[in-house]
């Protein structure tokens, strides 16, 4: 008595039924809310192109900000593509996402690249941007506490990457933030 083949066939048929039911439900639900499928598909997908040949700093900086916005909006990167697709719920309110995106995207202005920045001048910009976003997060009532530290981490990482691109000494930001404060971090964990 071998039921393995039968099982597989029943499982597959069940899955297909499930998917078709889910699809029907989805279409019904979005129709009730007053949206079309194409409209939602269009908004659910964001492409952030980063071609290998093009290495312009402005594009790279803009992509950092766009990627940050996509992650906070609940999107994730599709494997092997340049598309970010909606996979979950947003981490924060739309107003916070837009404001923090604006702060990060301000670095991709030409003026930031034309002026040669050393570590100290970027440090002023860095602390200002961090404090603004940090305070904004405290006042934003929609952000859940569990998302607070991950968002801070994301912002720090992006700002460090921006610093590496903008400042004259390549890789200096990693040396500054990566190594320093590890002992203090351990203390806080305790």
């Amino acid at each position, binding site marked *: 008595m071998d039921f393995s083949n039968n099982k597989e066939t029943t499982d597959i048929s069940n899955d297909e039924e499930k998917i078709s039911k889910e699809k029907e*439900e*989805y279409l019904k*639900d*979005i129709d009730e*809310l007053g*949206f079309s499928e194409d*409209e*939602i*598909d269009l*908004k*659910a997908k964001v492409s952030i192109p980063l071609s290998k040949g093009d290495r312009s700093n402005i594009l790279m900086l803009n992509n950092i900000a766009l990627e940050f916005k996509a992650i906070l*909006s*609940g*999107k994730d990167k599709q494997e092997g593509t340049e598309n970010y697709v*909606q*996979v*979950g*719920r*947003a*981490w*924060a*309110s*739309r107003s916070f*996402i837009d404001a923090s995106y604006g702060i990060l995207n301000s670095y991709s202005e030409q003026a930031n690249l034309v002026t040669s920045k050393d570590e100290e001048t970027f*440090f002023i910009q860095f*602390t200002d941007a*961090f*404090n603004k976003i*940090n305070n904004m*997060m*405290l006042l934003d*009532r*929609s*952000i*859940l*506490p569990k998302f*607070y*530290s991950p968002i*801070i981490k994301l912002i720090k990482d992006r700002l460090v990457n921006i610093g590496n691109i903008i400042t004259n000494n390549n890789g200096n930001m990693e040396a*500054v*933030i990566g190594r*320093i*404060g590890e002992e*203090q*971090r351990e203390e*806080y964990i305790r």
Partner: protein
Amino acid sequence: MKFLGFGKKKDKKKDAKKEENKPKTVEQKKDNLSGVSGGEVNIKVFMTFGGSVNTLKDQFTAVETRDGAGGLLFYNQDKMFVEDVDFEKDDVFRELKIILEIKEKTPKEQLKILDKKIDRQKKIIAYLMKHDKLNAVYNFADEDLKLRDLQVLRSHIDNIDEKQGSFYTLEGGKRTFSFLKKDGFFYPIWHGVSHYSTYPDYIRKRKIHTAETEIFKTEWGNKLKRILPIATIITLAILLVILILGNLYVGTVLLGKNADMDKQLHGQAFKCAEYTSAMNMQIGALFSNKCIDMLMDEENMTRIEIADKYVPAIKDLSPEKQ
């Protein structure tokens, strides 16, 4: 007796009412209104003791102060009472009432509109949890917050205190805030009924906020501390190099001068040696003279002794002579 007893009770009540209606003296008024101009507030702490009825456990005055972040606190040192105060609730209600266009409607109509809105909002959240793609159109965090605000507004309108119309009461000119103590935490009681809050996670988020800002400060503070020693080391190194170079220069100059001095000294010494050799020669020649030899002879010495007139300059103390 019963009549008498009732009569007595009635009289007591009347007396109490009369006393209440009597005009208060200036001193009494002062006692009641002391601390009105300051930041003092009355605090009432309620507890349920496992039941559903709130019973007054403690009552005291607290002072309004601000913490390091500028947040408003109620503080009483004796009672070890420190609690946050947030007035955002009023602003949220005001905004919501304007947005929903329910400001000039009766409470019943307001509740009807709010119920409809809450139902729709719940549906949207259910759809968002069901279908991930819908999150591209609706922001879950925003919709969740909207539902919470609507629920709080509904509760607020349902349980509104008609006399005061605010979330605190006035007693003796001071604001009175009520708290329900449960499991060691103080829950603010707005109008004594509402259990909803527009910002329930504020305290926890502020803790994370302060921790993150501290981490950031230590990271960048250390960075600055690290830069300073490097600068000092560089300056010290430069100073050391300058000192070494200076020493070398001065040393070479001194060595040159020393060599000159040595040359001069050597010349003088040579001259001295010449003079001394010449003198030796002359003294040698002088001693070899016959006249002096004769004077130095023994015979001459005996002659002096014989004369007895002369005492020899050096007395001979040898035992043979004595």
